[in-house]
């Protein structure tokens, strides 16, 4: 592995990983992302809905 290879590898992997992690973080911490996450909820029918 040459120094050039290390640089290319670290930059490429580092860039895509940090982009992915920061995007996922933004999505998960964004208020709207949790607003309508109801796909897996069980509706027991004993709670009033607003």
């Amino acid at each position, binding site marked *: 592995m040459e120094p050039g290879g290390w640089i*290319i590898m670290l930059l*490429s992997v580092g*860039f895509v990983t940090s*982009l992915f992690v920061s995007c996922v973080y933004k999505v998960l911490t964004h208020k709207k992302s949790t607003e309508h996450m109801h796909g897996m909820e069980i509706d027991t029918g004993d709670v009033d809905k607003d």
Partner: protein
Amino acid sequence: MSQGKKTEKWSSRLGVILAVAGSAVGLGNFLRFPGQAVQYGGGAFMIAYFISLILIGIPICWAEWTMGRYGGGKGFNSSPGIMNILVRHPAGKYMGVIGVIIPVVIYMYYVYIEAWCLGYAVNFLFTDNLKLGSEALAYKSFWQDFIGFQENGSAIGFGVGQVGFYLLLVFVLNFFLIFRGLSKGIEFFCKYAMPTLIFLAVIILFRVLTLGTPDPSKPDQNLMAGLGHMWNPTNLGTQLTNPQLWLAAAGQIFFSLSVGFGVIITYASYLSKDDDIVLSGLTASSANEFCEVALGGMITIPAAVVFLGASGVAGIGMGTFSLGFNVLPLVFAQMPGGTLFGAMFFFLLFLAAVTSSLSMLQPGIAFLEEAMEIGRRQSVTILGVITAMGSGFIVYFSKDMKALDTIDFWVGTFLIFVLATIQIIIFGWVLGIEKGWKEAHIGAEMTIPRFFKPVFKYICPGFLLIIFVFWFLVNVLGINLSTGDRQVVSYVSDLFGNGGAVPSNVARMSIGLIVCVTAFMIMTVKNAGPKWDKKLKDQED
């Protein structure tokens, strides 16, 4: 509208992101990308790759998300319906048909490849069929028998070492999930499949990065040599002036992100008006890039070089199928714990393939429901019949993979270029940059950098057209861009018999299959056109 028009929606933002990312992540991330990178000098390829990502990949992604949500807001989910409202000309809906032909026809052969992945995972885990020693030829021979490469009709068998059983299984799985609907089928599956896929890939990556020098008698075959083979910038200056490199890098970005497939536009049409498509589009693209560069780029080639050496890998082949189904089974057979890691790797590919093939069915379902005003049950049945016939044709004519190869070239490559070019021109020039920009930012927390405005309008369409022209010169006209020599391309000579070649009946029938599907869709659009126009007019009134 009829019973089928109960509006479908994604149940969560993360769900739609995982579904779009799942659509993009496929075999190309783990097999095609590493092969291409090595072929074009590692580092040099990566420079062209990232430039293409910024100038083509991300902009078309955002454009598709925007146009899709815009169409969905007007009550249309299919590519022809959305193009109809964007272009406001009768030709629009016919151009949009390409966005249904591509995913439906690609599904016909993709499900066959998906079955290979499942079959290999099962054979690794439960049989000794893939413990074939250290001879590369034995693995090639197994693969050819498994997929029926030697003789037409020989793939159709239901033994554990034949593809037929797995094909039936994955076909049923796909249609079961698609029948359950957008949220309970596609989204539900992707929510579990995508994290599992990444988890499996990380485990395999850890195994690869701890391989060291497995055979002390071959000290040159070690992890550092493997990483070097993948990432070292070979002939940086010369490679970057090679047009073939740019063609390969742009093509990889293009196919990897699933842009121009007609999938994203359909998926985005089920979003709500205030969903943040800028962030969602970027997140889905970044998930694909992470799987491709950080996982695919670190696993496949380094592992192969550690066990086979650089010349050994090159000797077997760097193509997607050679690398995946000839080289890697041999690598896993040599690797300590290879049975388990081999099964995990092919199961990972299988999951990646299912999330992609599901996305290929939804545009067809949306189109049939919208154009024929039918419900999901009927649309799933019709699409099931069409794709089963197409897949049956491709699997039966398995000799030399002629049917698969022909359809992949003309639909899976040529038509994708055409649709992506049409889409970005419609976004930049028909919808208009200002309107498109405003539409993209509705509900968006983050803003697209302003320099993307000229990218959308000029650079991306221009870059795409140049790439398309070069692709056509090289792959259809057979011109070598470095030497200027011209040679006959088999995809063309198979159809026309030029250059003294004997035309292939299977290749011609494959084109016939594409024409039949196209004719059916054009007739369906023609019937639906007046109803769509009336619906639009009613909305405007």
